């Protein structure tokens, strides 16, 4: 009976549209198996995340406004060592305004999928002043800015940052921030190939010293993060295979693979 139940569950999973990302994370405290499973519903997706000793169940939804914009939102409830936790997030843009926010709490970190601890949050607002000019304001507390899918070592406990970006073929970014000491922000992003390959460089200098570089080649993407006091990482995505090695007080590595079906 149990075998039929498992067969039924496996058949159900394989028929639904979904994704599975699974891998191993290792640091001096030992290896951790980490996985994320997402199943598409008619509208939105339910997902489960596991990185012992913590796991989460969540739902994410989205609303597409065609060429006008796109909104995505979600929440996850967590259970693990230390007690309950949870995260709510939303992101998207409509016309000239883009917003990204994330707010969460967990008693203890459980890398690689639950790297933050305590209360954490961030809010980033961008506004298109003119077709080629964008101003931005970002606030982050105990969580890095940027995608949550990589670990981003060496990010300060908090920062407040303003930026101005001008697109003239390439995009040039200038900005300043506090973390808590003042720093300057310089960025360059542009196409470096015939097929839309992109190089993205972002440098913070002064009270915060940090270089983030990304090279996007299509089937492969390469990332480098370097921060002082010394911390950093190199990451590569080769198709659906992700490799990341870094250092933040201690070395770590993360290898993962993503499947999508049908």
């Amino acid at each position, binding site marked *: 009976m149990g075998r039929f139940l498992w067969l039924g569950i496996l058949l159900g999973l394989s028929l639904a549209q979904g994704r599975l990302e699974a891998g191993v994370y290792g640091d001096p405290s030992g290896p951790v198996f980490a996985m994320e499973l997402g199943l598409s519903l008619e509208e939105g997706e339910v997902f489960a995340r596991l990185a012992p000793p913590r796991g989460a169940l969540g739902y994410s939804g989205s609303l597409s406004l065609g060429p006008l914009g*796109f909104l995505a939102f979600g929440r996850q409830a967590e259970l693990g060592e230390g007690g309950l936790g949870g995260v709510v997030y939303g992101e998207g843009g409509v016309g000239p305004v883009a917003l990204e926010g994330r707010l969460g709490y967990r008693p203890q970190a459980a890398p690689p999928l639950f790297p933050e601890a305590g209360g954490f949050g961030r809010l980033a607002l961008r506004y298109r002043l003119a077709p080629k000019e964008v101003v931005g304001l970002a606030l982050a507390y105990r969580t890095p800015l940027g995608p949550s899918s990589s670990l981003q070592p060496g990010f300060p406990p908090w920062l407040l940052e303003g930026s101005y970006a001008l697109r003239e073929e390439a995009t040039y970014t200038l900005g300043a921030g506090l973390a808590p000491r003042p720093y300057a922000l310089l960025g360059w992003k542009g196409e470096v190939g015939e097929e839309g390959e992109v190089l993205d460089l972002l440098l913070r200098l002064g009270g915060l010293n940090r270089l983030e570089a990304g090279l996007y080649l299509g089937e492969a993407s390469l990332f480098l993060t370097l921060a002082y006091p010394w911390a950093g990482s190199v990451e590569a995505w080769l198709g659906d295979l992700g490799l990341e090695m870094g250092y933040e007080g201690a070395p770590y590595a993360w290898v993962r693979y993503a499947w999508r079906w049908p």
Partner: protein
Amino acid sequence: MRRLVMVLGFVAWLSLGLAQSVQEILDRVEKNLSTPWQATVQGRIQGPAGEEELLARVYALPQARLFRVEFLKPGSLEGNFTVITEKEVWNYLYLTNQLVISPKEKAQVQGLGFSPQGLGDIRSLAKWVSLRLEGEVRLPEGVAWKLSGQAKEGQGFARMELYVLKADPRPLRFLFLDEGGKVLADLKVVEFKRANLTEARLKRYPKDAQVVRR
């Protein structure tokens, strides 16, 4: 003289007969636009911020059922583009650097006052609007057939008018209206030309874009 009148009458009857149905006109447009082409669409739309100017470039590879609409105006849409494939609609959003891929049936757009899909793919347009032939009108580009019809539900507009150039069957003007007859979008097709386009060119997007599948 009588013979001439008869011949002229026959030609007139024949030309009317050839253009009797909407389907025939759409077939002629489809046949005429069966090779790669590009055009500029300009006009006014009723956007979220009120009436705005719209300027967009349309690229079409009809045999591959592939269309691309690149937005130049309003400024808040500059850099955004829509790609329509056989089964999907891709919307690239410059500000958030996202490529949102939706199945065609999920991709109907509310709030823009018109369907970008219809600008390139006229046969699809006819699936969402019950068009009928209202007659012929003289436009600066030449004599055009005027088609109009009620939209099926969920299109973001209630009624549309379409003007098709008779001498070189292709759309000249799209007019989208709401239930009260208010113009939601009035778009003219200009700078039409045959072009040498490739599938890769029409599907091109920045490689660092976040791809979101819905």
